[in-house]
């Protein structure tokens, strides 16, 4: 009970900070613009291809799916955008507290390190979730105008995938932020590592050896595929959740160790 109250107080504090400064507005604004931009481009292409398919002499191939083409396509792109934006949300989480000295306030209040970390994680994740929701407004148009509205299930799992992959980015960024009192360093480290995890996925090649396969499976974006298609792929969900837990665990160890090393 106290743990919940403490965590919610910390989440509220993070939100006050995000919305009391330009961070939240800039992040939301950029996200919404890019979401809208990708949506616009993808739907244009979809319309062109649909018309072409309809006009072909074979009476068109299989019907193009809004889910596969538009929703999944945009969400995929947004996962990459998240990779760029989330370091901005996480870099200050601990680094700023350290620089300001306010970490001492938190550390001497009756809070556990776990509560502090969860409060900050959920605070950042909450803002990220709000960003996702703001983008979903675009998809509402599909239901309104499309003759055959898209299925909602792939959309739901796609959004879940986007949330999970963002959670991984945030957990890693949170850990990086505990390592330094310099926000730029925290942000750059996070960004570099996230790019690394993205690139790992490019090694995915069915003909490659077991080791390469394994490393490729660590790529954060490779686990998006099935979820984006509407399959509730449990191994992928477990992978993301483990990644988040592991990131938060490292952050916890780092926060605790600072008390030891001093």
């Amino acid at each position, binding site marked *: 009970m*106290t743990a919940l*109250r*403490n965590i919610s*107080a*910390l989440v*509220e*504090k993070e939100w*006050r*900070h995000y919305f*009391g*400064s330009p961070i939240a507005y800039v992040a939301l604004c950029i996200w919404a613009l890019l979401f809208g931009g990708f949506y616009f481009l993808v739907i244009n292409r979809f319309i062109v291809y649909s018309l072409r398919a309809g006009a072909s002499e074979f009476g068109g191939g299989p019907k193009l799916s809004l889910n596969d083409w538009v929703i999944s396509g945009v969400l995929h792109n947004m996962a990459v955008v998240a990779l760029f934006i989330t370091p901005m949300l996480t870099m200050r989480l601990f680094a700023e507290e350290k620089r*300001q*000295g*306010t*970490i*001492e*306030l*938190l*550390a*001497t*209040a*009756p*809070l*556990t390190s776990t509560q502090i970390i969860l409060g900050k994680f959920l605070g950042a994740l909450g803002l990220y979730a709000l960003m996702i929701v703001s983008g979903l407004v675009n998809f509402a148009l599909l239901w309104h105008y499309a003759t055959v509205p898209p299925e909602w299930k792939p959309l739901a799992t796609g959004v879940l995938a986007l949330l999970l992959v963002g959670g991984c980015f945030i957990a890693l960024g949170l850990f990086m932020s505990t390592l330094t009192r310099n926000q730029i360093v925290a942000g750059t480290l996070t960004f570099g590592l996230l790019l690394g995890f993205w690139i790992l996925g490019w090694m995915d090649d069915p003909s490659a050896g077991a080791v390469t396969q394994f490393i490729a499976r660590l790529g954060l974006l490779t686990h998006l595929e099935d979820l984006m298609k509407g399959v509730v792929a449990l191994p992928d969900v477990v992978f993301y959740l483990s990644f988040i837990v592991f990131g938060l665990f490292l952050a916890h160890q780092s926060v605790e160790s600072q*008390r*030891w090393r*001093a």
Partner: protein
Amino acid sequence: MIEVENLTKRYGRQTAVDGVSFRVHKGEILGFLGPNGAGKTTTMRILTCYLPPTDGTARVAGYDVFEQPLEVKRRVGYTPETPTLYPDMDVQTFLDFCAKIKGVPARDRKGKIADAVEKTRIGDVRTTLIGRLSKGYRQRVGLAQAILHNPEVLILDEPTAGLDPKQIIETRALIKALGGEHTVVLSTHILPEVSMTCGRVVIINKGRVVAEDTPENLTHRLQGAATVRLEVRGEGPELESALGAIPGVKAVRHPRPGVFEIDADAGRDVRADLARLVVAKGLDLLALAQAGMSLEEIFLHLTTTDVAAEPPAATEAPPAAASGEVQA
């Protein structure tokens, strides 16, 4: 209330706190005195569970700072030297946040905050962003935050630093008022502050306790012999020798006309005899005062002489060592 046993903290090779032991009783105000870098802040950070000790133990309200930090933190209010505040929050929001994380129940929150605001007199800046406050106000917001949850123990690291003289007086009065109900440990390097607010003083230098007593006793003990300063108008040539003849007087100095400094045996009050003699001689007695060694002098004495040469327990009052060894 606070028991510190043989506390040691090393940063790498550097020893910040070296075998410090002291106790603070319930309701007492303890002054923690020492030059900058003596280990005051480190000791306080250990007491507030911010840093773990390298060696030794510290217990607050019966809970070990290392074993049961949460219990300790619940009972301690703490302001570091530079108050830890969020510059982008206003005072009200900040105190509200602090009340929440300190576990003040929702129904008491408003009252407790109002109480702390009133005690620290920050009512007029409640809606101001902390980043825009002056140093003095920030210091007081830090203090308000510390007393917010009505903790049993208050640990204040230089609570009057950066305040103007009026605020200093008000803050000292507040701290004095907090003693009794709360147990207070306050650090400072301002000496009058200690004699004004604290019931007991621990003087620390280079990580070691060099003296521990009440301010009066410290003054008294280190005096060795009591010195009385006497001012008279119209003096006879025989006055100096007559003063010297009073029983209990060890030495008489006559630094300038009309002023005598009389050393008496320790524990012997010769003031009444002196007064009687002056009046009997038909002279005007202008001033008669016990010229004890001020806390300032004691402090300088304790912190500038070689600690190793002098055992940390300065409690047996090194006789007459007072004036001779002061190097500053």
